[in-house]
């Protein structure tokens, strides 16, 4: 790989959370969490704001105490240790650089506290600075740097101690779109190079999909789904996950089975099935097949509007009183008539329980 790599030795450690809970007074942020982050993997914790993801991260870091349960990093129980004893480093949302210190001192501060000699500090900081392209800025103060450079200093400050665990708390949310993309690529490369166990908190699904080896989706402090981006996209475990991932998100329609087919509220049959009862049916906008002519058999819906996004177009249509979004290739023959004919691919449909919102895997494949 790179010639400077040998200078950063990271022994990645796995993180196990066992029955971890967190309450603030009467507020129960995390009821009971049992999850393992594998050593060396890039795990993204994804969820809407207030789902407990930042709290989770701060408990791993040691900035918040757990109300109950155990946190094990490597083979050490750390839930009662001070942050500095846990071997974690963190990159904060607003970077939290020390404004009065130079870039060099910012990166070297933790080494100084840990008692490294001046020569050692110098050597380590130089390696990190070279790795992050900060060599020319070491004498500057954070106020003289751009947002992206500050971000890199914050990362440098985190990796200089060779932590077993790297924690990122929504680190890209302060950057503009272009810089966010570039930094995302840099982060992915960096993770490949240094291989620390990385936990990255975000509410941005694009960051999650592009960066993660594994995504943990949290909702109200509980795990909705934990899996690879592919699993999460193609096999969402619940309505919540299905709606959260994908842009535009998955269509969720109310259907009921009469033993021969699943039907919409207006009686149109969506797919043959022997199931009986009410269900939620999920279908991704890009999986829906639009028929060119209105005379062919299939489902029909009233077109409401159409958005052209360059890479594709999104048609919003009224289907049995619900909004259906369909992604079509840009410039594809646009049906000018109001009524759109289309069909659902039977192998790409997702069925969810109406009450629990959980997926019913394989339910549609078992049909005769």
């Amino acid at each position, binding site marked *: 790989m790179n010639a400077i790599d040998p200078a950063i030795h990271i022994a990645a450690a796995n993180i196990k959370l066992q029955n971890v809970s967190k309450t603030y007074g009467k507020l129960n942020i995390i009821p009971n969490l049992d999850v393992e982050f594998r050593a060396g993997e890039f795990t993204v914790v994804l969820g809407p704001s207030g789902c407990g993801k930042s709290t989770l991260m*701060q408990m791993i*870091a*040691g*900035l918040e105490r757990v109300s109950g349960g155990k946190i094990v990093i490597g083979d050490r129980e750390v839930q009662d240790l*001070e*942050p*500095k004893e846990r071997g*974690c*480093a*963190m990159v*904060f*949302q*607003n*970077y*939290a*650089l*020390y*404004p*009065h210190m130079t870039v060099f001192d910012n990166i070297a*501060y*933790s080494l100084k*506290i*840990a008692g490294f000699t001046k020569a050692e500090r110098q050597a380590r900081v130089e390696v990190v600075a070279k790795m992050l392209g900060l060599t020319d800025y070491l004498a500057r103060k954070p106020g003289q740097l751009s947002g992206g450079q500050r971000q890199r200093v914050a990362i440098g*400050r*985190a990796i200089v101690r060779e932590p077993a665990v790297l924690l990122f708390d929504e680190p890209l949310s302060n950057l503009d779109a272009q810089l966010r993309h570039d930094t995302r690529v840099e982060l992915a490369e960096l993770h490949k190079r240094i291989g620390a166990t990385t936990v990255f908190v975000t509410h941005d699904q694009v960051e999650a999909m592009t960066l993660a080896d594994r995504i943990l989706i949290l909702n109200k402090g509980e795990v909705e789904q934990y899996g690879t981006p592919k699993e999460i996209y193609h096999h969402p475990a619940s309505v919540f996950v299905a709606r959260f991932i994908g842009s535009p998100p998955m269509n969720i329609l109310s259907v009921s089975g009469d033993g021969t087919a699943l039907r919409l509220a207006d009686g149109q049959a969506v797919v043959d099935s022997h199931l009986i009862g009410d269900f939620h049916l999920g279908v991704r906008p890009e999986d829906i097949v639009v028929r060119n002519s209105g005379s062919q058999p299939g489902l029909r819906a009233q077109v409401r509007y159409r958005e052209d996004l360059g890479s594709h177009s999104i048609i919003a249509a009224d289907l049995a009183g619900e909004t259906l979004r369909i992604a079509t290739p840009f410039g594809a023959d646009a049906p000018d008539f109001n009524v759109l004919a289309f069909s659902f691919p039977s192998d790409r449909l997702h069925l969810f329980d109406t009450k629990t919102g959980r997926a019913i895997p394989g339910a549609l494949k078992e049909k005769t």
Partner: protein
Amino acid sequence: MVENARTINIVASLILIIGIAYILIPLYLTLTTASHSYEFMLQNGLVWSIGDQFLVNIRRIFTETSIPLQMLNSLAVAVGTATGMCVLSFLSAYAIVYFNVRWAGAAFALILATVILPLDMRFVTTYQVASNVFSPLNALLDATGLNDLIAKIFGAPFHGEWSILDTRLGLIAPLLAHGMGTFLFRQFFLTLPKDLFKAARMDGAGPVRFLFDILLPLSRTSFASLFVLMFLSGWTSYLWPLVASSKADTQTAVVGLARLIVEDSAVPDYPLIMAGAILVSIVPLTMIALLQRYLVQGLILSEK
């Protein structure tokens, strides 16, 4: 607006000139009075000309009055209040902003209460406490009946007696009880990135290290502003030092100056008093000249 700029400039300049004259003329008269002899003043009253007795009057301040010694007292009070205020406010603001103290809000409200209830309003009680620091404790023990218990066990009730009147501590301590500094530091801490404390903890810095390595260097300007403001108010404070010390050699210079008029027999020795006034003003004047940048910053900060 643009067409009238000239007229506005002229009017504004006129107002400024009147203002400056209003401030400077008494100061100039102080200077002229200080430069004449007592006899000359008795014959001529206030004059616009500058005489040749200034150095003589200054020498008389050193030989005939306690002003030089009292200036040392003033210096002690000013430096003492300024330093004490800086340290106390810094630490209390640190505790309020960075620690999860349950009653932090109430504590801050109490501290702020000193701003709306200044020393001038708490004069009598403050004097009572200063004349015996233990008096609140004594009263509390008596009121709660704990003293009866103590009397049973130790044979006599507790009754502490410690007067800090006529001491420098007695001059300084009540002036310290003012919430402005805490407010100033709190406002400043709140402008800092909120994750700074967490970042320092992740880097391995404990609360004390964070205080010295991060917070203290960042607060330098606030410190300087507060120090200048408190030094000036300590140096010029009059009412409390007047009450808290009755002996000439423990009084402050500002009180000492006023005491020079005490004899109601004849016309006071104005040249001597004015020379003293000039001498006493030199210290705060130098302070303002050197540190006015911080003074302005402090005023802006405390108004926010």
